[in-house]
């Protein structure tokens, strides 16, 4: 396990104007593992994602990816190391087509530059057609119909397809660590079940990929995660299998209330 871990944090902490949002959190994830991150509202889950992707700089602690510290690196560099994410409130570009949105995930792999864009259309044509084939194969993993909708603005798609495009965009980066932030938010139960299938497919596609998934819905967590970490008030309060964590008293207190429920 120790040798196989791809990402870990060391005493990760951040505070905003005196409020401690993440408090000495240590998490790690092995290659090919799916780690569930749970906790009530405001327990620091999304903040951890924002730190990992370089949007926030932690006030204390460090985090490592493939043995290298990413502390203080700008978001684009962290992305290029192989960490991709989705956002809780979808941050797709709604005016752009599905294809364009997926393309941005391939951004840094393109050799093409401003001068080439103007003068070397043949190079561009080759790259675009290769990228499009790849985008189509990614999209069709999720929903064959999405391929037909590739030219449609994302804003015109239903919520679940937007979520799929977002995951495709992240997958287009060929990441080795994928961060999913509440992928089921705003979906019906049926849609959620479909989406869980999708995420499983992602794993099957590339066995090496590690996923950290933030969720409040335990059904999702239970069905796909190998291991669960529970947070409360920015601290890690439990870690283990889904079963273990959901029977942990502190977790039950955090969710159900201090006195707990008689079962």
């Amino acid at each position, binding site marked *: 396990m120790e040798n196989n871990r791809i990402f870990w944090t060391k005493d990760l902490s951040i505070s905003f104007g005196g409020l401690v949002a993440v408090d000495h959190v240590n998490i790690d994830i092995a290659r090919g593992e799916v780690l569930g991150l749970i906790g009530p509202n405001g327990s620091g889950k999304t903040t951890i994602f924002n730190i990992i*992707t*370089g*949007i926030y700089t932690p006030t204390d602690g460090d985090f490592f990816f493939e043995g290298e510290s990413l502390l203080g690196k*700008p*978001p*684009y560099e*962290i*992305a*290029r190391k192989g960490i*991709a*994410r989705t*956002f809780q409130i979808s*941050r*797709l*570009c*709604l*005016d*752009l*087509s599905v*294809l*364009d949105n997926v*393309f*941005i*995930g391939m*951004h*840094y792999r*393109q050799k*093409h*530059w*401003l001068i*080439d*864009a*103007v003068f070397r*259309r*043949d190079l*561009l*044509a*080759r*790259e*675009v*057609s290769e990228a*499009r084939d790849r985008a189509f194969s990614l999209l069709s993993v999720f929903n064959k119909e999405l391929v037909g909708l590739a*030219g*449609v*603005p994302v804003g015109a798609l239903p919520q679940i397809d937007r979520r799929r495009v977002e995951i495709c*965009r992240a997958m287009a*980066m060929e990441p080795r660590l994928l961060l999913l932030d509440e992928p089921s938010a705003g979906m019906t139960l049926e849609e959620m079940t479909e989406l869980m299938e999708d995420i499983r497919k992602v794993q099957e596609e590339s066995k090496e990929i590690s996923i950290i998934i933030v969720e409040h819905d335990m059904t999702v967590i239970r069905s796909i995660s190998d291991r669960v970490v529970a947070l409360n008030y920015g601290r890690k309060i439990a870690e283990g299998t889904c079963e273990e964590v959901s029977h942990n008293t502190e977790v039950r207190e955090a969710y159900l209330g201090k006195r707990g429920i008689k079962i």
Partner: protein
Amino acid sequence: MADENQRSQTGPLKTVTVLGIEVVIYALFLALLLMPGGEILIVEVLLLLAALFYLRRNPALRTQIQELFAANARAAWIGGIAMMLLVPFFVASSPYWLFIIIIAGLFLVACLGLNLQLGSTGMVNLAPAAFYAVGAYTAGLLALGWGLPAWITLPAGAIMAGLFSAFLFIPVLKTTGHYLALVTLAFQFMVTILLDNMEWTGGPQGLKNIPLFSIAGYSFNTDINLGFIVLPAYANFYYLMLLIVAAVGIASLRIYNSWVGVTLSTIRDDEIAAQTFGVQVNRWKLIIFSLGNCFIGLAGAFYSHLVGFISPPNFAFDKSLVMVSVVILGGMDNVFGVVLGSLLLIILPEKLRVVQEYRFLIYGVVLIVMLIFRPRGLLPFKPRDFSDLVEAAKRKRAIPAGSEAAEGRA
């Protein structure tokens, strides 16, 4: 199915239809310029509104026309270019309108630069006129002081405007939204005040007698005598302007239809998301800001040679406002929108000289009404379509193999 559609949209009759539509629009445009009085303007505006309304109610017709033009793109382009080349012949009798068209062309070039910043990348720049001034004064001073020829002063103006962008590099990266608007506004006012007060820019008198273009001994101040018709001297400027518009326009279109375009759109829509996908947002912002200002500076340099006399009021804030309005009204991040915008906002107000007194008032009111009711402009941003490029790539691959093409037919 798509193939069938394709076939039904081509053929000589369809080509003629496409050209016919273009000729009608062209004729209306020329009539607007050449017919005296303001009545024609009213008639045409009503016609335009009626056509827009009709097309809005009949989306099927609209898509049909779009497909028609897409299928006959080559004919449409050739027809359009021919008509553009012929403009001086039709307006030979009124050089004034040729001049106005050249001005519109210059605004188009500048606004394409502004569109890169404002429309494509979402960087607010309320100081395009200041960069226009940098280009104009650079060209003017070089030509007056050292007698440099146009083929040096034009690029020099562009490059100088690009270099001047560096003054705003740090603010451009550090501020966004309202604050960036204020930074550029302040810059705009600083430039106009300085132009007014500095001696070496001629102060309020500006620069006079800037030599007109002269390339390889041929002065642009000579009429073109073709025997059967004499084109006014402005025709020289017109063709050079057309060349520059074509170059800048094609560059803009190509940037838009490329990875770079996708990258810029993502920066515009969501900087944070762009960063988490590996986009070096800051680098792109600086490149685009400078490049956009180069286009604006190029237009400015041309302007100073065209009119021969420049002074600070030519580059005041209201010019910036007009340029920004061109981009917004035409349609952000849409090259054709910018074309339409500069035609409407530069040529129509000239026609409105009939109602001279009220034209800026009308302008202000139209701007407000448009922004409230059609904030995305007349030709809004449309999702990119890369299929042309993909087709091109496929064809190239298909030539040696030959199998794919056959498959396509089957």
